[in-house]
């Protein structure tokens, strides 16, 4: 028997209202069902607001009653209302998400449910149509208000190249969600790959007990590869990148250059030697000498700026002059093999992190683009790959940056090459609106700033216009998931990584070699 909640009394297709008992504890975001017995439909609703109602037609009644209570409080004669359930009630405003017909098919909301129809909590059957639409990358369970429904919420891994946005204020569960997402890709047996930059060092170990990280994932040994500029023994490989791999664009992604500085940078790369020599010379030779020689048409002050930045790059412990020591190729191979590659950038400055992210992402995108153009068979065998970057607003501020910045380019072109961008940010308002519109999947966690919510409402693939209050009141770990495949913005409770990890099946141990299997072979 569905849990009875109340009766519908109006008022339009987009704005359905129902009356509930005073004692009914309704939550923003709660999923409910309105029965339309006249047409055999079951309307799915989401609570967007709840208000009090009373049987008094006098607008000032509630205010006066509150005054009466206060008077009695002051007199030390605390009292309460009699017949509360008869005199007070709740009015819930709900958004109609659609309806399920008698055949179990879901339809978008284009009609009114029956007036005075019964409203109740959804049954398993009511939500069954959702099950088929949930993808293989599960991130949590369907949430109804503050309750969790035993129905997985996720996205299809095939949609990863259509980009993923993770938006949340600090403390709302971004890191946990990212660990769950990466954990799912780890367990996907090589179908998907992920390049994950970890600026806070929290993904690998989880940030210390009792938290768990990707290192604790049962598939970590087989499918997780960790690179760090300062690895701990046995835990990660030493991250080394070659100066020769760095391009002018990587530098322009990491730093802001003025127009003249950009021009000087282009000149330096063209005139001071290839394979990283230009950076080395910029770092080691005196700016005055460079001006006297190849960079004569640029201002000395401009060359001095380039020189300072080149010095900072060359002195980075992770940079090497020897191209053979670079691990970029290794990272790309890991990704091609369907692994999750965690790059620990926690010991790096923000600029250095950006250099590393830019170089690796550009290399990945270029490699996939080359395969796409030159070897389509090989391309189709490569796993769909997700590049995840925190504080993504740093690299997605301006669409025009796509000329040199690999991340806007990834957002615009990545889909074609099966490379998606997972942009993690607290400030979606700083992301260019057109770039944001390239992201098909949003994981929206709690966002306090109205401007952040506003831009997501404008660019989401599902209507979030009524959900401002819900987004504002999301608790840590609660999310709204939107993507074109979901019938509506799905409320979800993200798995707590540590709990979820307990249920992840470990890979099957390799079958022991049967006795005598090598007989007859030369060993």
């Amino acid at each position: 028997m569905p849990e009875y909640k109340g009766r519908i009394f109006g008022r339009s297709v987009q704005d359905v209202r129902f009356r509930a008992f005073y004692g009914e504890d309704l939550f923003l975001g709660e999923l409910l069902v309105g029965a339309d017995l006249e047409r055999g439909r079951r309307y799915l609703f989401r609570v967007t607001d709840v208000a009090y109602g009373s049987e008094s037609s006098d607008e000032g009644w509630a205010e006066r009653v509150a005054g009466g209570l206060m008077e009695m409080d002051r007199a030390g004669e605390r009292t309460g209302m009699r017949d509360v359930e008869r005199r007070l009630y709740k009015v819930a405003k709900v958004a109609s998400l659609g309806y399920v017909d008698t055949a179990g098919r879901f339809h978008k909301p284009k009609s009114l449910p029956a007036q005075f129809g019964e409203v109740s909590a959804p049954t398993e059957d009511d939500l069954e149509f959702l099950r088929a639409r949930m993808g293989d990358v599960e991130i949590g369970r369907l949430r109804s208000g503050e309750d969790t429904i035993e129905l997985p919420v996720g996205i299809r891994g095939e949609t990863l190249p259509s980009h993923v946005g993770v938006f949340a204020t600090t403390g709302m569960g971004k890191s946990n969600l990212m660990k769950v997402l990466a954990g799912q890709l780890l367990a996907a047996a090589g179908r998907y790959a992920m390049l994950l930059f970890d600026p806070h060092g929290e993904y690998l170990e989880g940030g210390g007990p009792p938290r768990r990280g990707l290192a604790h994932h049962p598939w970590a040994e087989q499918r997780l590869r960790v690179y760090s500029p300062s690895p701990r023994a046995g835990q990660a490989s030493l991250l080394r990148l070659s100066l020769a791999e760095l391009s002018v664009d990587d530098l322009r992604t990491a730093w802001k250059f003025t127009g003249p500085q950009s021009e000087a940078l282009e000149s330096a790369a063209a005139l001071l030697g290839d394979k990283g020599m230009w950076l080395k010379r910029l770092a080691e030779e005196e700016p005055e000498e460079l001006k006297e020689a190849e960079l004569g048409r640029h201002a000395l002050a401009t060359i001095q700026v380039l020189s300072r930045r080149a010095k900072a790059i060359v002195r980075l412990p992770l940079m090497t002059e020897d191209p053979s020591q670079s691990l970029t190729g290794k990272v790309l191979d890991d990704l091609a093999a369907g692994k999750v590659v965690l790059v620990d950038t926690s010991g790096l400055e923000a600029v250095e992190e950006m250099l590393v992210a830019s170089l690796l992402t550009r290399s990945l995108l270029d490699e996939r683009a080359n395969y796409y153009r030159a070897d389509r068979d090989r391309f189709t065998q490569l796993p769909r790959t997700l590049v995840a970057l925190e504080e993504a607003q740093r690299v997605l501020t301006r669409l025009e940056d796509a000329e040199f910045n690999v991340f806007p380019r990834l957002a615009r072109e990545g889909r074609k090459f099966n490379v998606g961008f997972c942009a993690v940010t607290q400030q979606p308002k700083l992301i260019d609106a057109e770039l944001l519109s390239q992201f098909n999947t949003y994981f929206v966690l709690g966002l306090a700033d109205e401007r952040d919510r506003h831009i997501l409402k404008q660019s989401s693939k599902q209507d979030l216009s009524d959900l401002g209050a819900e987004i504002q009141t999301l608790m840590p770990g609660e999310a709204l998931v939107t993507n074109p495949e979901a019938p509506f913005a799905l409320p979800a409770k993200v798995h707590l990584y540590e709990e979820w990890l307990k249920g992840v099946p470990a890979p099957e141990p390799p079958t022991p070699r049967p006795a005598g299997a090598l007989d007859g072979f030369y060993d």
Partner: protein
Amino acid sequence: MLNGRSFWVIAYRAGTIWHRDRRTVEEQAAPLTIEALTQTDARSRYSRALADAGVARERELAELGGVVDVLRELAEWRRAREAIERAAPGDVVLVDGSLHPGPFLPAALVVPIHQLALDRGIDLVGVTKASKLRWGRYAPLVLRVRRRAEEELGPNARWFLRVTGDIGTPLVDPFTGEVAPPWHSEVYVARLASRGVYAFRVDAVRGRREPTELFALLAGLSDDPAFLGYPYPLARVHQVVSLSGHLLADLRRDLRGAFLREGLPEDDVDLVMRDFHLTLNA
């Protein structure tokens, strides 16, 4: 519903609610009675109503407004009797209005009901929202008592004051010298909540409780913050039987349709149904 000067169309109903442990456990409202009364049949309608109630007419009444009051009061007293019959000893039956009927309702109707309450050990209490009791010829008694109580007890006190003599004392009208037969009921003026805005006339036929105990109980019933100082069950029953503005508007619209169907010219219908108060209040 309509005052056509030579005729009235009236609607009324009475109801009962049962309240226990701060909750209303049962509500009953009689169906709405709608009647047309004319000046010419007022007298006969009055007689018939009393006859139906089983009491003899003591006075003549030909005025339409008075007949309307009598019809409503008869319905209410019928309810009061039924409630007393159903109540258990120690229960309190509250009535909206005085336990002393108006001049046109014979004491022979009311006195047996008082007696029934006494016999069954039930406290019968009537609370009058707008009392016509006077001190002397003009001074409103309730207001006068309240002023005095505030002077003596302060503004935030609950109190009650009996304003009639001992039970069984014949009532003498100080102006006419007319002696009324003794009643079982006492008349009080009371303030039932320390923060209540109003004091009320309270009539009591005490079948079980002493005054202090009875008023303590009434004060307990008068603690609802929406109706501080007024017994909540009476407020509830008022809401159950009162005719809402929407209902009255519907009734008037139906009435208008009936007039037109009967062939009254539209101008005459407008004239009959027009209420100059609405113009003044607009």
